[in-house]
């Protein structure tokens, strides 16, 4: 070992004890200070005053800088994850992986430099180390520009404030949407009332005129007063196409399976289908135009104990859903247009809104489809079972004990 190498080793041992005090730099939120030494362009060129001892110190500092850069980017990744910024997280994670690799390489280069310095060499290793530091700084800058944030990560207070603002804006948008929808529904209803209804009398017509003026429809004033007994039709004639018809029949519990089979056959014969069947109950669906005919056929199959037929008018629901769907489709088109020129950050927000609107559209379409199906096919349920005791409590049961001993069960019991 040469004298210079021994001296370098001795100095190194001293530096290990006092060198730590030179690494007391606090953490910087901004870019870390560039190492002061010039970047060597030619291996072997040390520069003035660049002795082995100094180079030792600087090498340690370089490795430390690289480690701090990696830690800084790791913190940025954690912040991005916290605010669920997927794009930024991915970008910065990529930089972090590269930085960790550079850090490992830098430590190896540091070791190689130390070894080379014992032999009076080290220019190549030093150059490699400086190059690693340069690459690390480059990655740090790239990491900060992942989402255009040049001033570091968003602090917790700024994040909470931004989140609150977004929530408030979202609820405002929802309220405006609802208001728009209601106004449009009122206009449509007013149009139907004015256009399709027969109005008579000046008083009524004045009201109609006012409504017509509001919606932009012309209704000529009437001059003849109504005759006595004239029927004033205030709205459109009732539309039978928007009725959901259902019937519930309870038949006597006799020849149950045979009756259930017959009900099923009747349904098929009239263009319908079986919807549900259990031991004593069957539900069928038939085209609405065959409803009455099917019902009268089924009533002949047994003793009808209860009969309940209803028709539910779903015009309002239908119009309501159609309008909501129309509005949602318009909002979606608008959002898609906005997406074209949006920045990355705005695009993420627009996508979120688009997802919500698309979900709404699918929900409305599903409900409309269900309504159309219920209108097109009427439902008939036939049950062959005794009435539930809870229903019977509403009727007055006669207080004659002997009536409790009616029927087949007591009659056919031999041994008591």
């Amino acid at each position: 070992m040469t004298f210079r190498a021994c001296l370098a080793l001795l100095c190194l041992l001293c530096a290990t004890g006092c060198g730590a005090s030179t690494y007391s730099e606090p953490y910087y939120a901004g870019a870390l200070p560039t190492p002061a030494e010039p970047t060597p362009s030619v291996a072997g060129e040390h520069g003035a005053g660049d002795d082995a001892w100094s180079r030792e110190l600087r090498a340690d500092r370089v490795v430390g800088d690289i480690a701090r850069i990696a830690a800084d980017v790791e913190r940025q990744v954690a912040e991005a994850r916290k605010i669920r910024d997927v794009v930024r997280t991915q970008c910065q994670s990529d930089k972090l992986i590269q930085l960790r690799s550079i850090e490992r390489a830098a430590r190896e280069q540091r070791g190689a430099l130390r070894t080379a310095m014992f032999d009076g060499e080290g220019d190549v290793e030093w150059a490699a180390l400086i190059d690693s530091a340069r690459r690390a700084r480059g990655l740090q800058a790239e990491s900060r520009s992942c989402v255009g944030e040049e001033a570091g990560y968003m602090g917790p207070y700024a994040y909470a404030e931004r989140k609150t603002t977004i929530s408030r804006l979202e609820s405002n948008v929802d309220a405006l949407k609802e208001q728009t929808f209601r106004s449009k529904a009122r206009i449509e209803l007013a149009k139907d009332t004015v256009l399709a209804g027969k109005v008579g009398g000046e008083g009524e017509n004045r009201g109609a005129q006012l409504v017509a003026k509001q919606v932009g429809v012309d209704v000529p004033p009437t001059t003849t007063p109504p005759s006595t007994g004239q029927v004033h039709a205030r709205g459109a004639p009732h539309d039978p196409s928007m009725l959901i018809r259902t019937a519930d029949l309870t038949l006597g519990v006799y020849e149950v399976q045979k009756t259930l089979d017959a009900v099923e056959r009747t349904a098929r014969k009239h263009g319908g289908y079986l919807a549900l069947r259990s031991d004593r109950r069957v539900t069928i669906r038939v085209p609405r135009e065959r409803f009455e005919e099917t019902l009268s056929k089924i009533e002949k199959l047994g003793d009808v104990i209860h009969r309940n037929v209803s028709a539910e008018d779903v015009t309002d629901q239908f119009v309501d859903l159609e309008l909501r769907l129309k509005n949602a489709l318009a909002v979606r088109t608008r959002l898609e247009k906005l997406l074209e020129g949006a920045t990355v950050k705005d695009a993420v927000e627009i996508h979120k809104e688009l997802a919500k609107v698309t979900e709404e559209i699918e929900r409305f379409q599903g409900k409309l489809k269900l309504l159309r199906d219920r209108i097109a096919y009427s439902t008939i349920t036939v049950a062959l079972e005794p009435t539930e005791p809870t229903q019977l409590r509403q009727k007055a049961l006669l207080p004659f004990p002997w009536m409790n001993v009616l029927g087949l069960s007591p009659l056919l019991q031999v041994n008591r």
Partner: protein
Amino acid sequence: MKALVFALALGLAACGRPFDVKTASGFVEVEEETPLYDYRAVAPDGVAVAVRAVEVEEGTDLGFWERAVTLRMRELEGYALLEKRDVTSANGAKGRELVFGHDQEGKPYLYRMRLFVSDEKLYVVEAGGARDQMQRWQGSVDFMLASVSVD
């Protein structure tokens, strides 16, 4: 001897009844410790015929009891009313017969009921069994139902 005692017992029982009924061939009258019926006869394959007289309030008529029984059997028990017709007892009293159908354990059963009203008594005549058996024993059942005389 035993048969004589049994016949005497039956005879005595019949003396206490406010009605008369004949037991058809193939049926046997049964005695029970706590009878629900004043008369009951059964065939080996489960067809049964029974008669009882119950005290009722004055002023109730046949129409009332027909409606009460029909409501009870249909609404509560789920029996299907298959048929109803006017009938006459063996001694000329006017009555009403109701024929119900009801499934028991997945099999169709028939249940026939005749009602007669006189003074303060209601006479309830019942016959029932699996539909196939009832059809097989129809002759005997008709005979027994038609043989009922009420006071």
